[in-house]
Every structure is written in structure tokens, then in C-alpha cells.
């Protein structure tokens, strides 16, 4: 494989009339990466998937998908290299699972359709339901059938739009395991979700989206970037003059009292600050109970980033 990214998106925007669904979004995805688009309902996740899947034309911006520029005349070429599992499975309920897959195998013009179908059904553990009408399957099984359908063409990039929405925890876990198995095959996956745990569990990198791209990085990076730069300090007795202690410390930008004998410090460097603060406290004669980084879940990061959109920007 070349070094070129599997997918690159540059300043993509999409408006529906007056409504801006997607605003100036850019990112790149490497080969074999599982990339999460995380955002609440209405964030523009489906719009992103549909636009990159050539179902919608972007209002502005550009994208290169498996080396092919997103343009109306490249629709067929792009669509034959990717596959999309849409939000709702959209199976033909009167047809059997195998018949559904057969129709799509033909549409993708896959060679040796029969064995491909069998392989896809095995991959999603539906081989024993192959001849059942899709209408008789539970929601979770339908989702798996749709995933099998998306695997038929051996896509270079696989888009999964909220693959577990509406599933019970057991069915959702099954789908998670299937996605995990795909990771080992080296498929590039774009997964949209509004579920943090899902993004955190499955994705190599996550983009937090709420019309605009709010943040992008590995789940642990994201967590760090926003919140680990807070230090909590607790002492046995309130400090007589906290300002004198903290203001002199390197890498401490601000501090505030969060309770009796409890302080929260905003630091610019989480390696330099803690030892410096510890030394300053000791030399001020304070008895330190605890000193530590505040740990936050990705959820905190997420809510913080999403909320930034709600606050009126000055």
C-alpha cells in the first residue's frame, strides 16, 4: 500500500438550504485505521458518510477517497471501492438473507459471488440463517446481515453509520466483536456513533463532531489534551496565603479554592508543575494530604466540547 491516506477530507461543508449540517470539516484517515466520528444526534455524522459515499454532493470542500477525488463523474468508481452500512439496515424483508446478499454481490459485480456470500455470512455468524426471510430476523441479526452485505465487496473503506443504535447490550456487544474482528483484517473503517464507550473501545482515533470538527485524536490523547492539565491539591489545614505558594510555581497558570483546604490548579505542563507545587507546599510548611492530576473520562471531554457549541461565541 502507498503512504497516501485511505481517505482525506478537506474543508468539507454541506448545507441543506439555510441549515448548515457540516461546516469546514477536515481530517485524514490512514489505511487500516478505525476512525470514529463521534457526535450527538444532528451532528452531521450521517451527512458526512453520505457525502463521502457520493450520495450527497458537498456544498464546498473536497475529499479524496481511496485515491479518487470526490466528484460527480467518479461516483461509480468511488462506490465500487467503498461500502456503507447505513443507519437502518434496509434489507428486503421478503427476501432471505442469502438473497439480499446475492443482489448486492451482483450489484458490486464481485467475482465468484457464491463463495463471497458464504464468506460474508460466516464473518457475521449468520450462515445458519442464510435461508430465513430477513423479516423474521431480530433487530440485532438484521444489523449483522447488513454488516455482512457491506463486507461482500471487500471494500477498501467501510463506513458504518451508528452500527449499534437501537440494539440491546448483548446484540451491541456482538456487533462490537465483529468490528474488532475486522480490525485484524486491515479494513479501513469509518464508524459513526453517539456512544462514547463505543468510540473509546473500537476506534484508533476519534473526531468529535458537532457540525464543526471539535477535536481529533486518539481517545486517550483527547482526554489528556483537555483535562489532565488540572492539578488537585488537598492540605490538612487551609493555606494562610495560597497565592503566595502557587503564584510562584513554574507552569501554574491559575488556581482557585474549591473547598476548605482544597485547591484546583490549571497548569501548562503536567511534568514540571506537580513537583514544583509539592516543593512549594512543603517549603510553605503545609501538610499535604494529596496532590494529583484530575482524571476525567472521555465523557467529560466530549460534553465539554459539545457544549462549546451551545455557548454563544463572543
Amino acid at each position, binding site marked *: 500500500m502507498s503512504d497516501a491516506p485511505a481517505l482525506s477530507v478537506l474543508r468539507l461543508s454541506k448545507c441543506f438550504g439555510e441549515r448548515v449540517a457540516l461546516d469546514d470539516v477536515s481530517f485524514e484517515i490512514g489505511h487500516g485505521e478505525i476512525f470514529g466520528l463521534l457526535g450527538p444526534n444532528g451532528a452531521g455524522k450521517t451527512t458526512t458518510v453520505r457525502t463521502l459515499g457520493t450520495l*450527497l*454532493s458537498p456544498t464546498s470542500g473536497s475529499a479524496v477517497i481511496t485515491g479518487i477525488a470526490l466528484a460527480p463523474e467518479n461516483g461509480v468508481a468511488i*462506490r465500487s471501492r467503498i461500502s456503507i452500512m447505513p443507519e*437502518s439496515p*434496509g434489507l428486503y424483508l421478503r427476501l432471505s438473507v442469502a438473497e439480499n446478499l446475492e*443482489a448486492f454481490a451482483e*450489484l458490486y459485480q464481485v467475482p465468484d459471488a457464491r463463495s463471497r456470500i458464504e464468506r460474508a455470512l460466516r464473518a457475521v455468524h449468520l450462515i445458519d440463517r442464510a435461508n430465513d426471510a430477513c423479516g423474521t430476523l431480530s433487530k440485532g441479526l438484521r444489523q449483522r446481515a447488513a454488516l455482512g452485505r457491506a463486507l461482500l465487496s471487500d471494500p477498501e473503506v467501510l463506513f458504518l453509520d451508528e452500527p449499534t443504535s437501537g440494539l440491546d447490550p448483548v446484540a451491541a456487544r456482538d456487533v462490537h466483536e465483529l468490528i474488532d474482528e475486522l480490525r485484524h483484517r486491515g479494513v479501513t473503517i469509518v464508524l459513526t456513533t453517539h456512544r462514547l464507550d463505543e468510540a473509546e473501545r473500537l476506534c484508533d482515533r476519534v473526531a468529535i463532531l458537532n457540525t464543526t470538527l471539535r477535536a481529533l485524536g486518539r481517545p486517550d490523547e483527547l482526554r489528556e489534551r483537555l483535562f489532565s492539565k488540572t492539578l488537585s491539591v488537598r492540605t490538612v489545614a487551609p493555606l494562610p496565603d495560597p497565592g503566595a505558594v502557587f503564584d510562584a510555581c513554574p507552569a501554574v497558570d491559575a488556581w482557585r479554592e474549591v473547598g476548605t483546604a482544597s485547591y484546583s490548579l490549571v497548569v501548562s505542563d503536567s511534568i514540571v508543575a506537580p513537583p514544583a507545587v509539592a516543593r512549594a507546599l512543603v517549603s510553605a510548611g503545609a501538610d499535604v494530604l494529596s496532590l494529583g492530576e484530575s482524571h476525567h473520562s472521555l465523557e467529560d471531554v466530549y460534553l465539554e466540547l459539545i457544549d462549546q457549541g451551545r455557548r454563544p461565541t463572543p
Partner: protein
Amino acid sequence: MMKPSTRRVRAIFRKELREYRRTGSIVGTMAVVPLIFIIAPLARAFALPVSAAATLRHENLLVYLMAIPAIVPATLAAYSVVGERQQGTLEPILTTPLRREEFLLGKALASFIPSVVVAYAVFALFLACVELFAQPVIASALVRGPELLAQLAFTPLLAGWSIWAGIAISTRSNDVRAAQQLAGLASLPPIAITSLISYNVIHPTLRLVLGFGIALLLLNRVGWRITSKAFDRERLVTGSRSRGERQT
């Protein structure tokens, strides 16, 4: 423009036929509409006294059956796109490399072939009944060579018009029932003409028949153009949006 892939057209066609077979209402329509239209001419053929054979020679009872290839495909075609949208199956199929022309061709063939088969089968049934059970004089007055030929030729033309009108309407429609009603209306003008001929209001001269044939051919061409134009991936996907959400 690239040539449509036969494999993909066939995939759509086969999938449609499989769905028809398992959809009671479609099988019902295909069975009931022809029965409705065969009853009146059969009754007339059997009820007429032998003395009426001469008048029958100037009537065009068979033409009445032309309503079948006009109406049957209209209901199928009207369902073809909006039906998939309502089921939520359109978006997945549009994410495949399928081209617009392939999709429309597959859909059109899936309406065309069963309708024409049904229409020809009903004609054959009608003729068989008349030949076997009607008075021989009546039978020979009814069944005339040129008329049969016209019947054979016009059946696909009429079906074609109904299909393009039906698919175009289906592509632009948000509701299956509305689409089927509109498509029913669109299939009426040709039926009106065939009925007028059948009741002898219009006399089927060779020129008229040829003119009607050419008009239908042109309508079929225009129909294909309009249908292709009406097919807008973006509108089909986003238009289905609110509907899809309501369903879940």
C-alpha cells in the same frame, strides 16, 4: 456515457421478481385487473345472438383488453422507487456502484416483462375461450388477423408508456398510494383512445393506428429521458429521511 452493466440490470430485475412473488397485493393486482377486463368482452361474445355477427365484425372488442398492458405495469412502476424509499431499502442500493440507467432499466424491465406476459396470456385465454365456446360465426367475426397483429404490437408500447410515466412519478413522489393513483391517471389517455376504438367511436384506419403507434414510440423515448432526469440521488436519499425516522 458508459454502457449499462447487464449484470447489475439483471440483479435489480431478479430481486424485483422475487419480491413480487412474495407480495400478495402485487400477485393480486396482476390476477384481478386482467379478470376485470376480460369479463365484459367475454360476456358480450357469449351473449350475442348469431345474427349479430355482422355488427360484431365492425366492433373492436379485443381492443378493450388493451387496458391490461396499460394498467398492470402502471401500478408496478408507480411502486418501484417510492416503495423502496418507504421500506428504507433505497439508500443501501444507491450506495452500490449501480448507475442511474441500470437502476431504471432493471426497474422498468421488472414491470414490463411480467405485464406483457400477463397481457399476452389474457389475450390467449380470451381467444381460446371464444374459439372453443362461442358460436363459430361469432368467433370468426371477433378474431381478425390485422386486429390481432395490432394487439400484439400495441401491447408493449402501451406498457412502455405506463411504465415510464409510473417510474417518473414514483421517483418524484413521497407516498406510494399517491404515486399509484397518479400513475393510474397517466395510463388513462392511451386507454381512452383504445376504448374509443373499441366502442367504435373512433374508426381504426391504418393511418390512425400507425399514428398512434408512432406517438407511443415517441412517448416511450421522452418517458425514458424524463425519468432519467427525474432521478436525483440526493433528493431520493434526503427526501426519505424524515420518513425513515418516523418508522423506527
